[in-house]
């Protein structure tokens, strides 16, 4: 955090209304309050539809939860937020009942609060660094829940307030309409650049639309944020595959002076084990795209999807959890996670694992698939798995799973969803001559400016990090926007 910024944070904290608010309840009384639990739709009801699981806080609950925050002199929570949201300030505005001000505070650093409030792994970011967690060993202030509360309030109350803005500065191209691209575009538009987002698919939002299911992040939330950006002057072009429909060089000729690549990590990995190409075995990208983006489970839509009765999902990340819970919602009798490590090592958010367990998802851990079998039509009907034990820690610090010989057994299944990770999609990187790329196929950038080795070409999000998180992608988008601004100013002078 820069000194300038932390000075501002200190000044803000000394405003009269905040001092008064702090004094209005004793710290001891604040810490005595229990964390408010986010109301949830009952598991047996929610698994029958795509309805959002978390229902959001009521105004009373939000004010009560905001009251727990101590408005610390040294708000350590902010150190855990990759974009540096002024957490105590927005929370104190909630406590004071000033929601428009709370929203403004969020918007200054976070372009997509309704999204982050829902999908940020708060428990390892802001909330992990809250005073309650660090010093009191009590449940953290519900920062994510409060962020979502403010954002949803905007959605319901500020719909048509924003005016259409006219931007007049130099043209900048953003490649990919995921969180990285949306953030970069928003920041650049606010700096008066004429920004165009080029998106390969027929809809915007990246993983927020095609990956993360509606029961965690409804599409209308993402659409709302996109509409806001349109009003800020950002242009959106769909069905435009950069590297195919046009190259960066073509866009340069069209007058674009700088580029931000946020094309994500959309290349699914498979395990390359025998039988993996049988029918009924698909990547989580394919499965989730069919259901979330193409609406395949709705009979009115043309895209088909198989609704397996016994579904195995391979992996332990957010993607695996989203896939298995989707399978349950499409009517699976058995929806099983097969994961090679133990439940404690799963990279998925704890909340999602917890929700999955509530919904009746089976977990077969320390187990790995080694072969698939199919009927005479080529439809998968069986997976052979092998048990694993945890050995020495590997390079990631997690204990490495080692196969146990002779422990193989078969599980009858009729659908398999492979969620073992993604790599960057090579279409954009390959289309740019001499672009520096790592051995993981990610684009190499200067971490300060996010500029690649090619002048005027910046990148961020999963295309730089491999599969990471929404907020990190947004943080990159923001940094790159600042880098692009600097670059274009230097060039103009």
């Amino acid at each position, binding site marked *: 955090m820069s000194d300038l910024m932390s000075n501002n944070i200190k000044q803000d904290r000394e405003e009269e209304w905040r001092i008064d608010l702090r004094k209005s309840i004793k710290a001891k009384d604040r810490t005595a309050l229990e964390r408010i639990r986010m109301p949830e739709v009952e598991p047996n009801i929610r698994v029958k539809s795509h309805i959002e699981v978390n229902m959001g806080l009521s105004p009373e609950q939000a004010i009560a939860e905001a009251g727990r925050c101590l408005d610390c002199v040294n708000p350590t929570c902010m150190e855990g937020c990759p974009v540096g949201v002024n957490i105590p300030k927005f929370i104190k505005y909630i406590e004071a009942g000033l929601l428009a001000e709370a929203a403004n505070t969020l918007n200054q650093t976070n372009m997509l609060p309704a999204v982050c409030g829902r999908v940020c792994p708060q428990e390892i970011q802001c909330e992990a660094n809250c005073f309650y967690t660090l010093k009191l060993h009590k449940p953290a202030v519900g920062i994510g829940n409060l962020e979502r509360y403010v954002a949803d309030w905007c959605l319901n109350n500020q719909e048509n307030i924003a005016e259409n803005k006219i931007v007049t500065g130099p043209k900048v191209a953003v490649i990919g309409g995921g969180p990285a691209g949306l953030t970069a575009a928003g920041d650049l538009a606010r700096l008066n650049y004429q920004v165009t987002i080029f998106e390969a698919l027929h809809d915007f939002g990246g993983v927020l639309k095609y990956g993360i299911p509606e029961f965690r992040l409804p599409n209308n939330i993402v659409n709302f944020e996109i509409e806001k950006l349109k009003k800020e002057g950002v242009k959106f072009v769909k069905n435009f595959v950069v590297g195919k429909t046009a190259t960066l060089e073509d866009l340069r000729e069209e007058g674009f002076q700088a580029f931000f690549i946020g094309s994500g990590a959309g290349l699914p990995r498979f395990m390359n084990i025998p039988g993996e190409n049988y029918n009924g075995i698909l990547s989580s990208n394919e499965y989730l795209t069919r259901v979330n983006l193409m609406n395949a489970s709705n*009979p009115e839509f043309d895209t088909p999807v198989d609704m397996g009765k016994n579904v195995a999902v391979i992996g332990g990340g957010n993607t695996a959890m989203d896939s298995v819970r989707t399978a349950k919602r499409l009517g699976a009798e058995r929806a099983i996670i097969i994961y090679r490590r133990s439940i404690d090592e799963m990279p998925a958010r704890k909340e999602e694992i917890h929700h999955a367990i509530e919904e009746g998802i089976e977990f077969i851990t320390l187990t790995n698939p080694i072969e698939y079998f199919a009927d005479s039509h080529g439809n998968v009907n069986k997976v052979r798995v092998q048990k694993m034990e945890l050995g020495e820690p590997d390079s990631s610090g997690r204990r490495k799973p080692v196969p146990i010989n002779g422990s193989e057994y078969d599980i009858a299944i009729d659908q398999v969803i492979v969620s073992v990770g993604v790599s960057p999609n090579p279409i954009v990187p390959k289309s740019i001559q001499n672009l520096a790329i790592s051995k993981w196929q990610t684009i190499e950038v200067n971490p300060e400016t996010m500029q690649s080795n090619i002048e005027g070409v910046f990148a961020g999000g999963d295309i730089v990090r491999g599969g990471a998180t929404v907020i990190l992608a947004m943080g990159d988008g923001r940094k790159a926007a600042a880098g692009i601004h600097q670059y274009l100013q230097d060039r103009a002078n």
Partner: protein
Amino acid sequence: MNKIVEKEYLSDKVVKLVIHAPLIAQKRKAGHFVIVKIGEKGERIPLTISSADTEKGTITLIIQKVGVTSHKVANLEVGDIISDISGPLGQPTAIKKVGTVLCAGGGVGIAPLNPIVEAMKKAGNKVITVLAARSKDLIILEDSIRKYSDEVIIMTDDGSYGKKGLVTEGMEEIINREKIDLAITIGPAIMMKYTSLLTKKYNIHTLASLNSIMVDGTGMCGACRVTVGGETRFVCVDGPEFDAHEVDFDELLLRLKAYNPATEKNTKNN
């Protein structure tokens, strides 16, 4: 806007559409395809760019009605807008002067073959083309193919046009007559399987343009995966053309049926 500017029935089930899509027309090469989606509830399907006119900014698609979406596309009229077209996708055909090229097109596969025949001829090759279909009315684009082929042989299952017999019979006749440097086969997977077995017997390097099921067409989903030379490849980004002798056609044939129960349900809904 992707407006339809021309429409022609090539047969009962096969329609030619000329569509305004200037950016795609600029960039496309023989072998490229587009992904098309009709309306908000539509599905995404791949269709080969059969030809393009860079001056008018149009591309030509030739569509055979098989299921829901191909019917929807084929039923569009002049003046209608196609809501979503993206492309050009895939790797273009490697066009080189190799000597004599034997092209085999089956059914609607004649459409994607058409630009390759033209490009191969323009690259200075001798081009011999075998067109095959069930009956006379399914032989499409004959004039255009003739224009760029040194010789055309037509085979129909029922003998209603050209010679009666299978595409492989027509090909074998040529192979026995002269030296072939390269074969290209495009058509239903089953036809490509047998043409490929034939050319393998004669040791002729052969390319097949695969028609797997796709969703995004950009390498994101893996729906289009096939086994080539023992390795999994994605047709949309690594293909659609592969060394035919390395392709596991039996797997492709099974994978094409992946959504049969589901699509049948859909077809009934419409």
